């Protein structure tokens, strides 16, 4: 009899387990379904925040796009001494298609683009009052990412030329499934630039004057100014820069050093990647700083060739410091500090350069704009200024902030002894991408 009690117990227990399909229906705890994620106003806005997060990926604007520009255009002013192969190849101009950094930028860029495409596709469920802002931010992010892609993976824009050389694939709708349509071919450089300008112009008109740390209408103008400058469209670059300056919303920080290593935006910042101790990595610090500041080993040394450019009185020179046996950039010493992408000084320098080139004085004279930046560095005011002076000022003012190779290209100056559009100064299309997408054409030289 006793044995039957056990048996009953056993049967009762096991009986509850058999033939229960519902036991196989589990939902993940950390993820939600695609349908749910895009179903309402709040969720679409959350996806937009997700886009900012991806924009701030280390491979993108948390620093590596800036770093890559400095390494490509090193010109003996900086040198890579770290152990990572990826950046070393970039610096050595001997990249292979398998380079992890080259691949990382591509992957993260298109991930960001897919996220904002999801937002743009889901605008219908966004509250009417916020729709313009949400759309504007998404377009701004998309344009920013395409601008990086086209500048790194394609032969540079040459003012006055057709610019029908291969750019990057243009993807403007969200991915819902993988099929033949996913194998997008490269659009021309001019088509990519046209898309960037169209996105930014729309964003400029959609975005509000103020939008906390998010993109606002002036961020869109600042981006436009930079894009036009890259194209050599000095008039439009000047006008967009002037629009930012004339808004009166921004002012240069009193001390040059105050513009950097900020936990929150300074008065000078137009748009920055927000890094906090909980979220995000400032990868400029990772590579430019030493371990005392949360960097790696001091992977990038600043060389005399650069340091010798400064007037000894230049405050900007005093920001450099010696650490781990070499000179380091003092702009990157707060591992949880923001990564500034657009700041007012750049706008002054763009307007000054364009006014000087065009012989105009829109907003203010080139000399005055130049001196604003020059004097902030505790240097005495100049009495006259040439385009060369302004470009030189730009080289110092914006040093180690990611401008280097892009300026060399637009000015058609040599890149580490190579011509401004030499094959090995252009990133290869990542090998994994060529393998996955037969419609892609590799860049020459790879």
């Amino acid at each position, binding site marked *: 009899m006793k044995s039957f009690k056990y048996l009953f117990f056993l049967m009762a227990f096991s009986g509850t*387990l*058999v033939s229960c399909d519902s036991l196989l229906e*589990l939902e993940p705890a950390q*993820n939600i379904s695609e349908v749910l994620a895009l179903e309402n106003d709040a969720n679409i806005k959350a996806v937009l925040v997700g886009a900012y997060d991806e924009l701030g990926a280390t491979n993108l604007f948390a620093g590596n796009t800036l770093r890559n520009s400095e390494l490509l255009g090193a010109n003996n002013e900086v040198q890579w001494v770290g152990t990572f192969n990826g950046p070393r190849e970039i610096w050595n101009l001997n990249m292979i298609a398998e380079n992890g950094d080259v691949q990382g930028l591509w992957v993260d860029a298109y991930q960001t683009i897919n996220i904002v495409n999801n937002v743009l596709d889901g605008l219908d469920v966004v509250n009417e009052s916020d729709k313009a802002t949400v759309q504007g931010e998404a377009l701004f992010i998309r344009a920013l990412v395409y601008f990086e892609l086209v500048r790194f993976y394609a032969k540079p824009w040459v003012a006055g030329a057709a610019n029908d050389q291969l750019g990057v694939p243009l993807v403007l709708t969200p991915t819902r499934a993988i099929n033949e349509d996913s194998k997008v071919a490269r659009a021309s450089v001019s088509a990519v630039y046209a898309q960037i300008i169209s996105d930014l112009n729309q964003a400029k008109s959609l975005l509000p004057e103020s939008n906390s740390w998010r993109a606002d209408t002036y961020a869109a103008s600042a981006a436009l100014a930079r894009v036009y400058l890259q194209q050599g469209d000095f008039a439009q670059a000047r006008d967009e820069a002037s629009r930012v300056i004339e808004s009166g919303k921004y002012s240069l920080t009193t001390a040059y050093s105050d513009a950097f290593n900020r936990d929150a935006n300074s008065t000078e910042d137009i748009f920055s990647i927000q890094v906090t101790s909980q979220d995000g990595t400032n990868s400029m610090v990772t590579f430019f700083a030493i371990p005392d500041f*949360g960097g790696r*080993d001091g992977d990038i040394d600043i060389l005399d060739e650069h340091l010798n450019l400064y007037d000894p009185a230049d405050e900007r020179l005093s920001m450099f410091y010696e650490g781990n046996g070499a000179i380091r950039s003092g702009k990157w010493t707060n591992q949880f500090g923001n990564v500034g992408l657009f700041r007012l000084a750049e706008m002054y320098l763009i307007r000054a350069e364009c006014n000087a080139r065009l012989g105009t004085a829109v907003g203010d004279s080139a000399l005055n704009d130049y001196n604003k930046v020059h004097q902030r560095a505790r240097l005495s005011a100049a009495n006259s200024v040439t385009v060369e002076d302004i470009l030189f000022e730009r080289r110092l003012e914006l040093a180690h902030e990611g401008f280097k190779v892009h300026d060399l290209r637009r000015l058609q100056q040599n890149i580490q002894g190579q011509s401004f559009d030499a094959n090995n100064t252009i990133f290869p299309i990542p090998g*994994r991408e060529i*393998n*996955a997408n037969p419609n892609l054409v590799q860049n020459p030289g*790879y």
Partner: protein
Amino acid sequence: MKKISLVFSMLFLFAGMAVAQRAVSGSVTDNDGNPLIGATILVQGTSVGTVSDIDGAYSIDVPEGGEVLVFSYTGYASLEVTLGTSNVVNVVLEESAAQLSEVVVVGYGTQIKSTLTGNIAKVAGEELENLPVPSVEQAMQGRSAGVFVEAVNGKPGGAIRVRIRGASSISASNQPLYVIDGIPVTVQSQNASGAPLNPLADLNFNDIESIDILKDASASAIYGSRAANGVVLITTKKGKAGTSKIDFNYQVGTSQPTGYREFLNAAEYVELFTEAAVNLDEIEGNVPGGFTWKDWVEARFDRYSGPSDWRTGQTDTDWQQLAFADNPISQQANLNFSGGNNQTTFYAGLGFSDQQGILKNNGFERMSARLNLDHKSSDNLTVGLNFSLARTFTDQVSNDNAFSTPLQLIAQSPLTPARNFTNDPFQSGSRLIQPGELFDRPTAVYYNGLIELEESQRNVVSYRTLANGYARLKLAPGLVLNGEIATDIYNLRDDLFQGSITFGGQASNGYAYSRANQILNYNTKLFANYSKTFGSHNLDMTLGTEYQDSRTQSTDSEGQQFPVDDLKTIASAADITGGSSFLTEFTFVSYFTRVNYNFNRKYLLSFSGRVDGSSRFGINNRYGFFPAASLGWVLSEEGFLKDNNTLSFLKLRASYGLIGNAAIGNFEHLGLFAAEGYNGVSGLQPSQIPNPDLTWENTAQIDIGLDFGFLKDRINGEIDYYQKVTSDLLLGVPVPATSGFTTQTQNIGEVTNKGVEFVLNTNNTVGQFKWNTSFNVAYNRNEVTKLADGQDIIDPGSSRLMNVVKLGQPIGVFWGAEYAGVDPDNGDPLWYVNKEGSGRETTNNYSDAEFVALGNPSPEWIGGVTNTFDWNGFNLSIQFQGVFGNMIHNAAGSFMSANGDWFDNQTRDQLDRWQKPGDITDVPRAIFISGHGTQSRSSRFLSEGSYVRLKNVTFGYEFPKKVLDNIGVRRLRLYVIGQNLLTFTNYDGWDPEVTTDAFVNNTTFGVDFYAAPQPKTVAFGINVGF
């Protein structure tokens, strides 16, 4: 007594309706006169049998015509006795290594090996006892044909790669399913550092009775969708009725690395780097301002020398020696208590193992307790409980890819003193290094890993409970119902603290990370076994259902800004920088069956199958059916062979079956978004593309085998040929990243494994001097036969690592540029162009060399041979183990063997660099910081990985019974044991058994990146029994 034997016989044998013609009885003992309990006694040619009781006594009704009794017992040679006139037959069985009549554990039951139609390799628990290794897989290494075991490096408690008959999957798991006493246990590593730990190290293998490895589909199909990588069934020890026994074992020993690499000394270092700088100066020509790299490099020498003078060779640090511990001590103690009576038997085991690693501050400690209890509550009902608790403590060092891991110390310059040896503080960068303090950058070339060892700690503690209760009810003659409830509870804590001068903590006044992880895995099953004999027809059937639910939860947090380094918990952190919790779960609902039939134990037939449903599969493919069928023919039972005196056993068997691999992520079939916050605001990002068709991987496996025995099975063995075709591979198929995704999990692709296995066991001599040999060897050819449409290669895209998945090549094949040595004219590195039609043309431009397959990271042949000798109480066991035909990629070669490219100390072979026209060498001209032939994806850094290892030598002396009786001790044995004593290999790295812990995955292995070598251990031990 009789009653017990009767019940036993019903449970384990095909007890037919015996026709009582003649009653024979007697006893079964071993050489020493100890009773053998549970020995099988069969009347040859019939299915009549019984087992001996706790006194070794038996009685059997021999039917008419029955003339020969066959006595067998696991681990002993079986004995055939022709019945004479006497009805009393007492036998003494001789011990032997392996036998065909042994009982093997199969899924949900047991079976006599001679009637098996599948391929099951058995490892007896006693072969593993007392081995000075942390985990059971390591103890199994080299003991079974076709079972590849590799510790990823020599850190105790670390991950172990086990591949049964080759790797069949690219992105799902390739590890076998482990089932301990019926529980499919958790084996996925849960610790947070990049160096995965092995959850199976929680098991004290001294408690193991046997390990049965199900290799072919016939054996494993009853485990259905999880059987494709083979199944390892682990059975723990049970008590035996009779006098209680206490056994105690203690051993203590010490370890050292199996090998060292040779590095430059200070003088050679200065010579090489000065030359590299001068060469660079020569290439660059005169630089305005008089800059020379020679000056620059010498300035670096000054910097790296700290307070010493490199010009006089004042410091010559052997950093390699500093990475290794000084005679680390390992200890093991086990105390077992077992016994019982007719109703209740028990086995209780306490274990303690402390394995100090060969690296500094690296150790593994396990405390375990086990109680296995079996109770026969009536003739029809047996209930029992297996319960074990274990605590492991791992003192972990950083993964092999971290500057802070001890072996990366070898990258430091020999010019650099490890510590400030002077009596004065030394200014090093922003820090003042006090006398006796360790140097860091900028004096050291890299972060000084010794700081990590002294100023940080990473402790992983796991608590593991394995418990299962069972009830076995005899419903009718031959029909037994089994119910089991089991849990595997795995709790893990992972705590890291990095002090204020460590790499991880120096920017934030210390850093701490803490993680608690729990896996609750529970499992219930209900199944019936029915066995019946109708004349010459023997039938054995199993039918059942099983449910498994595994739920993983973890919580972690991290903080920084600690007031002092003595306060190490996050409670003291001023800044909490992260916190998270995580949950995931999977379930399986299954139904399984097996039917074994044999005619006179001569013609064997088996069918098994399982239906598995899992939460992991897409809604369109939720349930799968996994059948297998097999046939066997025992030729030696046929008339024409039956009386052959030489050939005592011969069986042909063949099996075919479909099995699956469900070891994929838990929710890979869904389209998902994940939370990604930004600047404190919550956000969402797409994380996964849906695939509602997603399902298990299918493996079709054919096995043809031959089991043989000669000279009364004194020579016995197996030969198997198998072919495993795995299709519907769960591939993270690379999709264009322009879609916003990099991979989609699809059932696509195919991998084939073909191989041959050979096992031979021989009792070379018997009697006073016993010599047994057991030999196994296996060949496996692995090939990727299909990928996604139009896809030819899956290349993870690393410039450091070169394992890829390539069509027509084995998984993980090394894919890179083929190095052609050095141009004797100018010292340039050369690679073969390898473009179509380029023949053996070479280039000095790495980019011009096409990537080609350079070698297989998996061995083609693996094997082992064990010889045991017994003489008058002395016993000696010698085990060799080896792998052949694989290559190893030294991925750190581009740093440590880079002809003076950067300040990493170089291996001594770099002294052989090209220096002048005409020099014939493989080491290019030393040119500083120029990447002169240092590209890692090149066969320059590949070497042969074959090795043969003297895996284990044990020499012991068992004191004779006569002596022990006087002192009241049942057993006393003293022994000395050596593990990994000798390694024969052409690999010039530390150790050829290597796969860096930081990189190991399905497709990346055979890589050496500062990986700790295996330990060579010598230990002394004592066994005492009462």
